[in-house]
């Protein structure tokens, strides 16, 4: 019952923000942004806004840069905030790769951290939270009670360090299974639904293989992450999925081993591409979009990736080949012993932090709070959230006509889900991942035993935690 309530709340938020997010044409998008800016002038706390007026310069680091779909949104909205307040943003955003993560951690280490940071809220943030270099939402609210009050506290992720919330989230993600329906039709396989089981899935894979296609597009030697996550989730429930087993022999650990064995069984049955151990992720993704592979396990960001592949000009949505896009669908990942197929992996994995440095500066404190309040307001968040979820309390009215077919199918799939659980791999970082992530080719090819690999990873994890 409780699960249903949580799922319903998440889904209503996800539906709303997703529907609000994607503008059909440029004019519609601009109109929405302009309206958001106008409305937001009133929505941000008046008290905060008054204190934040004046020529304050804030150093802000985010991941809204490079190819990030929200890079332009971010620029548009921070410039509107600058105009509104007369303050200045010194933007130092960069693509969210390993170099970026190192830069952020090093900046905190050397005392050159920014004033506001949009960053991951998992174990990547542990070092600067442990060092007390960012301010918790609770502490900020002691002085600014309206801070992030438009968001549902229950959906704001807490830190792994002290169980407190630090980062104000904007947009979330989900992971599911994309389907090339043209291949399914050719192989005589029906479109999987909410009650899809692992046995049905393997039967379908065999039919697809017999029809001369590759059943699953995955580069196990490069990105085994999604299969790793769901194969383990298949033996867990949303309630216990984020528990790291102590040993490969305990109840949870056996689930992890069984998950690895399932991937191995799929490999041995020849359901992955022949070059799955040597291919890169973009190669197998191309197999999927070019109609050579039927299933693709991936995240919400791939909705746009697949849509782009159906455009003659990936930069121009007006060149979309709607007939080609109609051949793609998205559904639930087949379930086994634990979770239901409709239990998804997803969540709000990043958010805005205020650093202690800015908080202790009387000039910057109010400006930082106002900036984040603006960027996480009811009007701005839907522009960022797109097909992901958000933590907004108020669900905005949306126009379904602005979405393409795959976006609509995604929304429908999300609406039918029963829960969102964070990825356990976000807790299982660094060296502990190596035996089962980078070691996946050795596991599936049989040169390393799945149980040994799981145990090795757990040993590394527990020796450093």
């Amino acid at each position, binding site marked *: 019952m409780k699960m249903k309530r949580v799922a319903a709340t998440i889904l209503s938020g996800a539906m709303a923000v997703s529907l609000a997010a994607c503008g059909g044409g440029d004019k519609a998008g601009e109109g929405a942004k302009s309206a958001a800016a106008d409305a937001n002038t009133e929505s941000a706390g008046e008290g905060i806004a008054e204190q934040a007026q004046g020529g304050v310069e804030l150093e802000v680091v985010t991941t809204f840069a490079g190819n990030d779909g929200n890079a332009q949104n971010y620029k548009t909205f921070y410039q509107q905030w600058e105009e509104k307040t007369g303050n200045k943003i010194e933007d130092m955003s960069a693509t969210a790769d*390993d170099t970026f*993560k*190192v*830069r*952020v*951690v*090093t900046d905190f*280490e050397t005392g050159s951290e920014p004033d506001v940071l949009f960053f991951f809220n998992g174990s990547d943030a542990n*070092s600067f939270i442990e060092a007390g270099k960012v301010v918790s939402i609770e502490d900020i609210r002691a002085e600014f009670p309206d801070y992030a009050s438009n968001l549902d506290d229950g959906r704001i992720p807490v830190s792994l360090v002290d169980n407190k919330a630090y980062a104000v989230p904007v947009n979330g993600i989900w992971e599911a299974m994309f389907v090339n329906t043209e291949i399914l039709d050719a192989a005589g396989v029906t479109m999987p639904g909410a009650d899809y089981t692992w046995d049905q899935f393997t039967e379908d894979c065999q039919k697809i293989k017999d029809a001369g296609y590759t059943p699953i597009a995955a580069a196990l*030697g*490069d990105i085994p992450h999604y299969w790793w996550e769901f194969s383990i989730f298949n033996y867990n429930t949303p309630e216990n999925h984020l528990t790291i087993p102590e040993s490969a022999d305990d109840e949870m650990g056996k689930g992890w081993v069984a998950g690895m064995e399932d991937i191995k069984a799929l490999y041995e049955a020849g359901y992955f*591409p*022949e*070059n799955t*151990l*040597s*291919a*890169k992720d973009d*190669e197998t993704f*191309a*197999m999927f979009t070019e109609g*050579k592979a039927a299933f693709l396990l991936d995240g919400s960001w791939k909705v746009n990736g697949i849509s782009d592949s159906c455009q003659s000009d990936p930069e121009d949505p007006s060149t979309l080949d709607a007939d080609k896009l109609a051949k793609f669908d998205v559904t639930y990942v087949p379930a086994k012993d634990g979770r239901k197929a409709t239990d998804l992996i997803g969540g709000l994995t990043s958010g805005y932090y205020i650093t202690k440095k800015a908080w202790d500066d009387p000039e910057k404190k109010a400006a930082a709070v106002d900036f984040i309040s603006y960027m996480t307001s009811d009007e701005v968040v839907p522009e960022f959230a797109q097909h992901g979820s958000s933590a907004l309390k108020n669900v905005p009215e949306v126009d379904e006509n602005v979405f393409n077919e795959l976006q609509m199918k995604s929304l429908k799939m999300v609406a039918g889900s029963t829960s969102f659980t964070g990825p356990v791999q976000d807790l299982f*970082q*660094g*060296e502990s991942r*190596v035996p089962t992530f*980078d070691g996946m*080719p*050795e596991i599936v*090819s049989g*040169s390393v035993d799945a149980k040994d690999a799981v145990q090795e990873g757990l040993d590394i994890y527990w020796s*450093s935690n």
Partner: protein
Amino acid sequence: MGANIYKNKKPLFLFLLPAFIFMIVFLYFPFFKNIVDSCMEIKQLGISGEVLNEPWYSNYAKLFTDENVRTSLKNTLIMTIVTIFGQVGIALLLALMVDNIKRGAKVFRTMFFFPIVVSATALGLLFNLIFLYDTGMINQLLSMFGKQELTDWKSEKWALFTMMLPVMWQYVGFYFVIIVTGLNNISEELYEAAAIDGATKLRRIWYITLPLLHNVLCTCVVLAVTGALKVFDLPWTMFPKGMPLKSTFLTGTYMYYQTMIVKDVDYGCALAVMIVVLGVVLSRLVNTIFKEKDY
């Protein structure tokens, strides 16, 4: 005053100081810090180590038991041999042929040297497309000639060949230009005298060209060996994380993998120390074997 101004060497030190400080700050200090870090416990990239490993030499002990270190050393050795014979050897053959043609030598020089100016990462991406499994150029050509099955050029069987071929191809032009310059310095009179004495072209190469190119070839070999130890960008672009099955690691790519992907920073530091030691030992060895001669 007068000529004394030339005897005062102190101003020279002033001009040398900036470069000296630069080297200290950006080369020698990081190098010695790296040695210290290889013995420390570093939990995350960007964070300095505070306590020593238990025992402090544990990373160095791990070097001897880590199977991937053995793979990377073996592959680096193969890469070194490939660079000596594949790069310098082919460059020598090409230079000798170009040296014997009357017209168009400059065109060949430019053409062979051109790959050097293209970034290694771009070349990696280019060769990725050439060796692609599904729609790669080579597999398409093979299918045009009737080959039914696709070849996975990045599989364990072919991976080293696929990785080393572009590296070899990229640097042939570099050594080609060096050797051609060496050939130009050999006096034409020697060849004319040998021709009058009835020496064939092959004999002229064996008895005149190669001995007089000895020092140039020594330089090329030393550069090739030390270059092979540093190769990183192209192999990493084509075979990240030692794909497939960790069979393509080189010392440089394995160090990067441990530091940036696995985030075992202190072990990455130990690998870096190993690479430096290997580089010093190999370059000394090569210098000893290919000692330059005075003529």
